[in-house]
């Protein structure tokens, strides 16, 4: 029988963690420094600075992860500005990092929904997924009643289609009436409402 052999030598050890700073050295050194920085809340400021300068997407991911691991109000504040980055990859990474800090991020949602930038309001809808249902309804209900951009409302509808409860159905209906001339949004609301209604606990019983 042919053999599958375990090697007698030890596996290759990765290089020892670099002492190089978060903003100097090679990508590999910055990656290592960024990962190591996640162990202490004292590193948030340095991580925040590094985030504004870092060009390597891989290192940037590690910085976002460390900020998420530290999970303080300061971490959230370091990440939030990147929601309005011109780089879609950075916006997505910031969103993902904020999703990993739901309790800390929740307090910032009203400000995000009041932001003048529609893209920020749109991304804020995604951050509502982790809220308790009543809070999600309150937050997105206000948005459905007042938001003037159909794309932002559509983002809210997407979230509600997945996570919403029947209490939000009137707000969805009202939003559909406001955007009666937008066939995509009215269709999205119809589908979302049907899905939410079909999940009522008393359905079929």
């Amino acid at each position: 029988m042919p053999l599958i052999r375990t090697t007698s030598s030890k596996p290759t050890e990765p290089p020892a963690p670099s002492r190089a700073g978060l903003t100097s050295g090679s990508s590999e050194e910055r990656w290592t420094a960024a990962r190591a920085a996640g162990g202490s809340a004292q590193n948030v400021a340095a991580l925040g600075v590094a985030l504004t300068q870092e060009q390597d997407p891989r290192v940037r991911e590690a910085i976002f992860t460390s900020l998420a691991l530290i999970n303080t109000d300061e971490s959230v504040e370091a990440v939030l500005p990147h929601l309005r980055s011109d780089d879609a990859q950075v916006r997505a990474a910031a969103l993902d990092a904020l999703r990993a800090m739901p309790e800390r991020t929740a307090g910032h949602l009203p400000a995000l929904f009041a932001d003048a930038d529609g893209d920020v309001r749109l991304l804020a809808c995604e951050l509502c997924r982790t809220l308790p249902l009543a809070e999600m309804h309150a937050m997105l209900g206000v948005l459905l009643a007042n938001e003037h951009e159909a794309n932002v409302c559509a983002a809210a509808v997407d979230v509600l289609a997945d996570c919403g409860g029947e209490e939000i159905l009137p707000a969805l209906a009202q939003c559909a009436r406001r955007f009666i001339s937008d066939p995509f949004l009215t269709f999205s609301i119809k589908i979302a409402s049907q899905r939410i209604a079909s999940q009522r606990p008393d359905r079929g019983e």
Partner: protein
Amino acid sequence: MVNEAGETDEEFRRLCDFLYRRTGMLFSDSKRYFVQRRIADRMAATGSSSFASYFSRLRSDVDGEIERFINAFTVNETYFYREDHQFRCLSNDLLTRRLNSKLPGAPIRIWSAPCATGEEPYSIAIWLLENWPQVDAYDVEIIGSDIDTAVLEAARAGQYGRRALMRLPAELVEKYFVQTGPESWRIIDELRESVRFTPVNLSVPGETKGHGVFDVIFCRNVLIYFDPASRRVAAENLFENLAPGGYLCLGHTESMSRISPLFEVRRYADAIVYQKPGGRADG
């Protein structure tokens, strides 16, 4: 409110917090039944008369209860040749491409994490012996790792019931197992000794470094149980443990593109896998 396992909503939340801190696994109310069943099992095993007394025992780590408790919460049910299309991809595409990037004589390293009771790493070994003609020409090191130390012991023992073998052809059972009872089979020693098992926690930064660098990592059906932060950490750990150009195989319901942009998606005839950039790019 008090529920079936006797715990209040607040106690349930505290227990989930505890589990999260220890393992990175996040259990919401929707998984409450899953959690309750394991609490009930551990309460019965420890003779605890109430949830409160059990939780007290847990927090105090009486008789190593924390480890037993974590072991009860990790998902260990699997079977040989599960999602074997990925093994086909391994032998048809991944290994050939990895060999193009390796120095002559360098071993091929394959990691199964988490490996549960060993079905996956042993499946990889059997699959390569049966389906990869070059298996004799290379040193292939297969390592299975898991957070659950109890299942690692079971993996080392290599003893399985009929259910675990259900997808293996009879001739392979005959070839690679010894029947030890009416419903139990043990992996033959030669194969058992060819797989090494180690403990690992994928959700702790840097925890995996000591395992070295692999050509292919199988990390199937575990990331879905992690919270977003732990998932990011695990993705970065896996990235560090892959050689440039190395491959990551996830479970069929998991998508790394939603977990981390660190990897590139590769589509082969039998599977979609994820590749660490930096080696010879293959599409």
